[in-house]
């Protein structure tokens, strides 16, 4: 699979988006608590 197509397949994958959103929320919480 070509790199561009692969990148699109990754960033539009729900299996990627959910963990990424959760990671961003976790980092935001960490900054708030620190």
């Amino acid at each position, binding site marked *: 699979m070509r790199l561009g197509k692969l990148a699109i397949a990754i960033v539009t994958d729900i299996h990627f988006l959910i963990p990424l959103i959760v990671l961003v929320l*976790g980092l935001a919480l960490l900054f708030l608590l620190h």
Partner: protein
Amino acid sequence: MPKQKVAEFSSMHSLGVASGLAAGVWLGAAEAPTKLVNAGFSPYAISFCMVAGVFTARWTFPTLLKGTKYVFSDLAENKHLIVWAVLAGAIWAVANTLTVFAIRDVGLAVAFPLWNTNSLVGLLWGLLLFNELQGAAARDIAKVVLGAIAILGGAILLGFSTIHADQSSLHHARAGVAAALGASLLWGTMYVPYRKAYISGMNPLSFVTVFTVGELATVFLLVLAFDGGFRAPIFHSAQARPMLFWLFLGGFAWVIGDIFQQFATKYVGIGRGIPLSNTNQLWGLAWGALVFGELAAADRSHKIFVGCGSLVMILGVLAISTAVATGGERASRNRAIKRECERFGLSYDHVLATNEGTEFTERERARSFWDYCIIAGAVGVFAWLGTNAAVPALHVDYRWLTMLVGILLATALGMGWRLWKLTRFG
């Protein structure tokens, strides 16, 4: 379904269950060496050193199982999964740091049960994202859900047994509860990348390799962000060196436990895998109570908590262990595999074979000269740190220590043999 196929499913199920339990044994032991560390460094620094140990340990024993050629060839074949492995490592690091805040603000008694609900979060993601338990018999669904709840309940009871009178005031209660719930959400979601890798046919050892890089990079950035940047005491203090060996040893036990956890996720999925490896609480308590005498002054009610907690946890394990995925659930899993293969252009037959443990790939199995150099280097780091290690004056029961180390070795050898025999660590 043919009898032979049923027997194969059952055998992979029992392999996954045994891997989850072995993960519990090793992850529980990972806490033990850190009890010997009392150098007054920040939690970020302690976490950073332990993860550095995890990273180094990855290049010792696991490199013997699959050489670097195999791992890099597997990663090249599944390039897209590198993103998921880094993501999982980063999630672990942030969750681990949040637990520090949770303990500080609400104490272990409240924080521990909250972040242990990660098994329920994982159960939900498994159901929604990977078709887990879909098509399963109602009896098996009940066994998995009740088993997960029982293991969570057992962990809560064990958590209460380790409480000391050091509860913080409720001043920061809301922040502490938010931190614990955040850790639960992160640790439950961390298994999404794990499962993603395995329904795409990746080898657990390849995944762990990149996972440790993501983990190390994130804890390093957290030290820079929260612990004084490059001026952080951990980078300059002479006090750090004597404690490093114990943290690295904890990291070694953790990485072995995590590899078993990965195999559990691969062969029984996240809904069953997370609760089984959460039995690490039982083993962590065994190390604390038997080797370090932490329950010596415990009163009757604490001992009752330990007994009940252990029993409830064992019942939960029994329930999940007997919930073997049937044909309907396997068909749902195969649909999830097919979806991955279509999305990322993978070979469905190949991925299916790796999930059934039936593909014994001989691909670049031989170790190269470099592998032995890497192993020697990593073992050398442990040996050098060992010569500089300080042994604190702490009561240690050597009889129990020998017994628990014996259980660790027997678990690793027994499970290693089974994994090799059935899957060639595939």
